[in-house]
């Protein structure tokens, strides 16, 4: 199967004062279309750094990243923005929802960059919110929603622009078991129905039953890259 993500010898160093920290050291791996992958590892193992680089949010210090067969030029910010807007969806640990907007308005945000008119944006967003089980919460603001509901709004926001890759950084870290289960069911459903490639970082044991492939990192070094589909 075609690899949509191809990580080649990627390294990432950070300067902390005068000390250089190796967050990632020569990591190489491939992820195919439609995979449902977890990046596992202890805190500080480089999970988020790898996810950020794959999401083109961070620039590697060395190595190369290929997405959909093309090498990513990290210096071309304009192309990266367009790429992320069209092909990527993100879910963050802290949800990062706009508190003054309703669930519906938050979900519509990525669509503001498209040519859709307001009616089309609204229709599409309601459809996605319905999919994540929040049809009756579309006019609620984040403060009026539970943590699990907020994360499902964040998931709807990530999915509304029909991305090809969904990246989630510790998406269940702030959720209870029930909310975690609901979120994972939503993501799995999207993965199975539309062939969405899902990649998330987590060390949450509760997720193990949903995962078909686990990539393990330790101190920035790839330990296991799991089995591909």
């Amino acid at each position, binding site marked *: 199967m075609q690899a949509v993500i191809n990580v080649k010898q990627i390294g990432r160093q950070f300067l902390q004062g005068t000390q250089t920290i190796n967050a990632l050291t020569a990591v190489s791996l491939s992820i195919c279309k439609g995979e449902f992958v977890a990046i596992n590892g202890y805190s500080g193992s480089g999970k988020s750094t790898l996810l*950020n680089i794959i*999401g083109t*949010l*961070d620039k590697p210090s060395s190595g190369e990243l290929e997405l959909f067969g093309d090498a990513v030029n990290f210096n071309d*910010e*304009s192309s990266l*923005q*367009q*790429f*992320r*807007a*069209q092909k*990527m969806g*993100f879910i*963050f640990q*802290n949800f*990062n929802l*706009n*508190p*003054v*907007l309703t669930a519906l*308005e938050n979900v519509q*945000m*990525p669509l*503001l*960059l498209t040519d859709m008119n*307001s009616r089309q944006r609204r229709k599409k967003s309601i459809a996605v919110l319905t999919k994540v089980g929040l049809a009756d919460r579309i006019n609620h603001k984040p403060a009026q929603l539970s943590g699990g509901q907020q994360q499902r709004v964040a998931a709807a*926001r990530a999915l509304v622009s029909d991305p090809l890759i969904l990246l989630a950084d510790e998406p269940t870290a702030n959720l209870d078991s029930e909310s975690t289960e609901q979120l994972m069911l939503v993501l799995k459903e999207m993965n199975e129905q539309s062939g969405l490639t899902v990649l998330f970082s987590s060390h949450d044991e509760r997720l193990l039953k949903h995962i078909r492939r686990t990539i393990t990192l330790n101190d920035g070094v790839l330990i296991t890259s799991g089995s591909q589909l």
Partner: protein
Amino acid sequence: MKWLKLSWLNVLRNTRRSIIAVSIIALGSFSLIIASGYVLASFEGLRESTIQGGLGHIQLALPDAFTDKEIDQGGFTPQKKQQLQRDIEAMPEVRLTTERVLFEGLASTGDITIAVIGKGVNINKERKITLFTPIIEGRNLPNVDLHKQTETAEQIYSAVIGEILARDLKVKVGESITLLASTSYQGINAIDVTVVGINRSGIPEYDQRSVMIPVSAAKILRDSDTVNRLVVSLRSTADTDLINSRIHSSFSDIEQKTWLELFPFYTNVVSLYNNIFGVMGSVILLVVLMSVNNTMVMAIMERVAESGTLRAYGFSSTRIAKLFATEGMIMGLCGALLGMLLATLVILFINISLFEMPPPPGRSVGYPLILNWNITAVTVICVTMIFSCTAAAWLPARKMLKKSIIDAINHH
């Protein structure tokens, strides 16, 4: 529209903070509009009181008469004066023209003699273009109609003199004084006139020297039927330069001066006020800018993570900076409109109330406080406020957006 709505919602995010920022902008706009209203009213008051105080909009004389007293002893012949008046009054912008005979001489009661500056006026026309200084005793000069030959000696030989001059000469209304002046051929002539009124301009130097008599009396005094000034009064002061150049192109054998050339002090006053207003305006603008900047920096720092999220979703830094700038613009617009509304109401109230102001330096009478509401000034102030507030939001937003997306998302 979608971006505007988003910015508007963000402005409402912290209502109290936004209200404080909008209030400061409103206060700044209000202060600037009131100050500009006062300054513009002062300019207009000075300009119009100068023009209507006797200068007129344009004065015509023989070439070099404005600088050479000898030439000024002469003047326009009745035929020339008539031709000038006919041609100039044919211009639609011209209200009317009137002749004057200016002279310097002496006023005497026999025991006391004082140097005076006099003018002979056509009282019928002068009434229409000059705001006469208040007559505090007696009455103004009587109307005279030379064409109907109905002029009596009593009408011709009458005078209105300044309050201080009357006091110094120890004359009262109804008493007679003798005026002496040079004739047009460098001789000396004298006439006796009856003081029919005493006026008070509020300018002590003027009230010490002023004598106003009918133009027919002045002609007798100078022993000449010429008039050394022709005063042009316009319907609007704004047409001064237009009419001045039109007269200049039509009549090459005369010299002309606009009210501004005759009263260069006006330019100095405008320049002084502009400097004061400029400094004051800059200080007010700086306070407003700092306030809006402070508000926006707080708003921006609270939303670093949110901005990072938007950038992750493909929003460009410029687009996000524009959102913040639009928030600044919205606050600037609300503040400027509120300030304009308040200032308009206050200006209306002050202008209706006619508060009396104390006499300015060099004057002995007060004046009513009037503030101008000038559309250009108000627009410039409001636009400056809106633009400044937009910039005050844009600049810190750009600075914040230099953070990497990861740092922004993880910012707490």
